[in-house]
């Protein structure tokens, strides 16, 4: 389970880093509300981690904190990505180091077309998939390339949001409820894509309410409840452990 | 009490006490002392405090609740003033009809301007209101001179008819009053070196201000107020919830226009001259600044903001170099010169500079305005007992 990283070596932490993405004792606040209450977990390179929990458990907050958005603010703890101290960076630096977040409310940028939304992702290095390749992945987006992004249907927006993350050369993909609002066929498609991404060695953290689907995909799982970790283990373990599922996931 | 929540009753009582004792509170320094310069307890300024307080309270009903930023609100103040002066000229020097007419006429203007401007939102609304006000100013200053007095402002004349007041007794223009009580009458009360002035006009305005404030509290706490805040938050949802936002915003606009008209009418009652500059965009901007400075959307904030700006305008601008030398006379000569040179740019003719700096300082350090500052201080005090381990409830401080 959790290996406490050896911080005593200071900058040479790189040598002792237990994993590719490490979150250690992270506490984060929205203003005065204490939401993420000391979370530690590791994700290994190329792994898919399912981050599960009920509404309001703090999943989104955790992802946002890792991506170093302004809120919630990390008040204590460390986040390391591939030997880089993310907790010392801000969000665009984190993104340049390889964090890609697909936010839960999709955050398509108004005033820009589909294509511009994708181009925007390729302005700062490192650049990932080409836009044409993304259109191959989501033909729907190709058809709508000139349409203003925010007028897309809900599902189309979700595709665009995922495509936008892939347009950058990321090391860790943080997915916040990627299946939400997607038709079952598309969910199948995306699941395939995620496996493909995994094969390319990209590490993924996925937050999903459809826990069973997520667990089938994931290697490992972390379950959150009111801002703390209540389970950290293999995905299969959760699927087998009925009590755990009932208590925290209600499935 | 008065159909208010406890918190609001407390606030109202505090405000009532403050206005009642304003002649003392604003004159803390003995006459003739160096600090007497900072006394603000003379009728004109006290009247201005409460009148602009009314103006700002009204503005805040529109801006603070609905988020619609009117940049032409001074137009209603001007219309109110003109109506009141016309009432003095034609009918009577009694302030009651003047004030009533001021409110009615400004209300009518607000209906028309609001009806048109509220077809747009956001910045487009602001510019529409600005455009109306600027047109009204420009016309009042020039083409409409026969009605508005133009550059010099509309003023009373000996030859005015004043049909209700009957025959003219003296060779001087009468002054506005309330059934024989002249607005400018004052009683001075000397206590040792202190002199306090109690002015009829001030107490009249203060009484109206309290009523206006009370009404504003009721509006803020009413379902109507809640709807207005909902308009600010999400108009779309309002519509899909079966509510027509237009009448709500228009009602808020007209109410706040009438507050402005009331303020204008009172201004004319205290000093019966209505100048066109009252409607210039800077005057509209001023009430916006007052409201934000104090804290938009809070009850007492706008009144505080109005107080600060009027205080600066009337007190700071009057400090001149001679007075400065007087203050720093105790310093050795070279140092005195130095200190005076240092302070001089910020007072007297430089009062605008200080005003600008205060604006900046307040928004930078106290987002949310002066009320926010007050709350912070309040919290500091409240935290201490909490730290002592007692179960001090974290109550929301009064707005």
């Amino acid at each position, binding site marked *: 389970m959790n290996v406490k990283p050896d911080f005593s070596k200071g900058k040479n932490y790189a040598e002792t880093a237990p994993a590719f993405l490490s979150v250690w004792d992270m506490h984060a606040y929205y203003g005065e509300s204490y939401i993420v209450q000391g979370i530690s977990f590791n994700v290994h390179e190329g792994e898919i981690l399912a981050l599960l929990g009920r509404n309001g458990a703090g999943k989104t907050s955790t992802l946002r904190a890792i991506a170093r958005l302004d809120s919630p603010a990390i008040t204590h703890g460390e986040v390391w990505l591939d030997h880089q101290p993310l907790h010392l960076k801000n969000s665009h630096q984190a993104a340049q180091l390889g964090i890609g977040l697909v936010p839960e409310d999709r955050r398509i940028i108004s005033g820009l077309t589909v294509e511009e939304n994708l181009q925007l992702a390729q302005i700062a290095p490192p650049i990932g998939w080409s836009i044409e390749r993304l259109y191959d992945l989501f033909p729907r987006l190709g058809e709508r390339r000139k349409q203003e992004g925010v007028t897309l249907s809900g599902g189309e927006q979700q595709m665009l949001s995922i495509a936008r993350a892939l347009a950058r050369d990321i090391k860790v993909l943080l997915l916040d409820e990627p299946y939400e609002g997607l038709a079952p066929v598309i969910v199948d498609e995306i699941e395939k894509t995620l496996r493909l991404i995994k094969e390319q060695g990209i590490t993924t953290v996925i937050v999903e309410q459809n826990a069973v689907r997520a667990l089938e995909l994931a290697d490992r799982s972390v379950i959150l409840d009111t801002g703390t970790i209540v389970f950290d283990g293999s995905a299969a373990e959760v699927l087998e452990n009925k009590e755990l599922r009932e208590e925290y996931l209600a499935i | 009490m008065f159909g208010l929540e406890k918190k609001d009753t407390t606030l109202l009582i505090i405000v009532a006490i403050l206005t009642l004792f304003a002649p003392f509170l604003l004159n803390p320094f003995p006459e003739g002392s160096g600090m007497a310069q900072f*006394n603000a307890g*003379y*009728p*004109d*300024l006290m009247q*201005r405090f409460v009148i602009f307080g009314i103006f700002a309270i009204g503005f805040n009903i529109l801006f603070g609740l609905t988020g619609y930023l009117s940049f032409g609100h001074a137009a209603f103040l001007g219309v109110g003033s003109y109506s009141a002066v016309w009432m003095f000229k034609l009918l009577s020097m009694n302030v009651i009809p003047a004030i009533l007419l001021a409110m009615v006429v400004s209300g009518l203007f607000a209906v028309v301007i609001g009806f048109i401007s509220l077809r747009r939102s956001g910045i487009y609304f602001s510019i529409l209101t600005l455009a109306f006000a600027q047109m009204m100013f*420009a016309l009042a*200053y*020039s*083409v409409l*001179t026969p009605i508005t007095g*133009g*550059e*010099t*402002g509309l*003023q*009373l*004349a*000996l*030859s005015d008819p004043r049909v209700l007041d009957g025959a003219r007794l*003296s*060779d*001087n*223009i009468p*002054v506005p009053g309330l059934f024989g009580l002249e607005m*400018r*009458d*004052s009683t001075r009360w000397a206590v040792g070196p202190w002199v306090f*002035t109690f002015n009829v006009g001030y107490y009249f305005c203060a009484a109206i201000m309290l009523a206006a404030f009370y009404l504003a509290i009721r509006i803020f706490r009413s379902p109507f107020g809640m709807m207005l805040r909902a308009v600010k938050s999400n108009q779309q949802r309002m519509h899909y919830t079966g509510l027509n936002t237009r009448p709500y915003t228009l009602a808020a606009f007209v109410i706040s226009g009438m507050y402005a008209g009331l303020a204008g009418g009172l201004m004319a009652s205290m*000093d019966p*001259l209505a*100048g066109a*500059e*009252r409607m210039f965009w800077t005057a509209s901007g001023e009430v916006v600044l007052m409201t934000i400075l104090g804290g938009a959307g809070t009850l007492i904030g706008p009144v505080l903001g109005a107080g600060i700006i009027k205080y600066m*305008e*009337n007190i700071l*601008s*009057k400090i*001149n170099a*001679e007075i400065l030398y007087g203050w720093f006379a105790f310093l050795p000569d070279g140092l005195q010169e130095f200190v005076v040179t240092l302070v001089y740019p910020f007072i*007297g*003719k430089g*009062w*605008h500079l200080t005003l600008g700096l205060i604006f900046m300082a307040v928004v930078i350090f106290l987002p949310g305005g002066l009320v926010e500052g007050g709350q912070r201080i309040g919290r500091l005090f409240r935290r201490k007992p909490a730290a002592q381990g007692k179960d001090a409830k974290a109550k929301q401080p009064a707005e």
Partner: protein
Amino acid sequence: FANEPTGSTVTLGFNVPQSGPYADEGADELRAYELAVEHLNGEGDGGMMGTFSSKALQGNGILGKKVEYVTGDTQTKSDAARASARSMIEKDGAIMITGGSSSGVAVAVQALCQEAGIIFMAGLTHSNDTTGKDKRANGFRHFFNSYMSGAALAPVLAANYGTDRKAYHLTADYNWGYTTEEAIRASTEAMGWETVGTVLTPLTQTDFSSYIAPVLQSDADVLVLNHYGGNMVNSLTNAVQFGLRDRMANGKQFEIVVPLYSRLMARGAGANVKGIFGSTNWHWSLQDEASQAFVQSFGTKFGFPPSQAAHTCYVQTLLYADAVERAGSFAPCAVVEALEGFEFDGLGNGPTLYRAEDHQCFKDVLVVRGKENPTSEFDLLEIVEVTPAEQVTYAPDHPQFAGGALGSCNNGA
């Protein structure tokens, strides 16, 4: 009476623009007031107190009370000016208010002083209305007015430009503009000039190109700019830019006239004023003894010559003090009585009368012209003619001043 000085001092209220476009003019007025107070209290070289024909002032303050003063900012807005004046009256106990740099302010404050029972000695105010339809018993004006500008300018214009001229007026769209246009038209038309066009321009206008351009296409050969302050600076600059001065029209050289000149405006317009006629109340280059004494004492103290506004304000303060001395009382009605019909000399502009009927003063008016080769930044105007007082005197019931009543003096509560 209101604000009767009881202690050893008496407070005067100097209400001048300290912010806004006329702030520099206001600053000059304040300097003059400071100087006047100094002289009244017997400090400095006494300035015009030596030349003043009335010898009531002794340099021991007023009626033995040391003169103190308070200052305020009119912002050149009637509201703000009244607020400032009220604060001086109510808070500081000022017994007399003086100052201002526009007619709107003068009229507004004059009315206030009438109501409050305080004496008002107007500063710079040129509109006919101040002592016309808006006159008040408690107010006095030492400045000249639109009518006088017209009466003084017309003969000079006729002499220099001929009597067969077609004039085009651009007029600021407010009271002062209206009275000035009326006065200039009346007196130039009486000389035989024809007015071919008059256009009102908004007060807030800054670029006058669209008003100047049509002048080119009219058959006018003179442009009269009834503008003051920033308006005048900009319209004159624009007119020169459009080449009006280099133009021939109707076989004559095209000319521009600016009825009311001030040195500060001339400075703002720079080289554009060269050769342009206008009128002014007073100028520092006047050679009479009184003017010289004032220039000397002002120049020594501040390092540059005083403006006409400064002169008016200085004189008004002395006149008030003198009237109190002569009346032996600060009571406004006594002061009014002492000033009404008062004739004096030795304050610049020659023998002067404060007329009882309208509290306007009558004295010589200067016609000036922008100087071709100024030697300093203050030496911008040259005096072309000193028009004698008789020539600019009019009947109290002259149509340009009709309406309004002086009322009776008010001593206040």
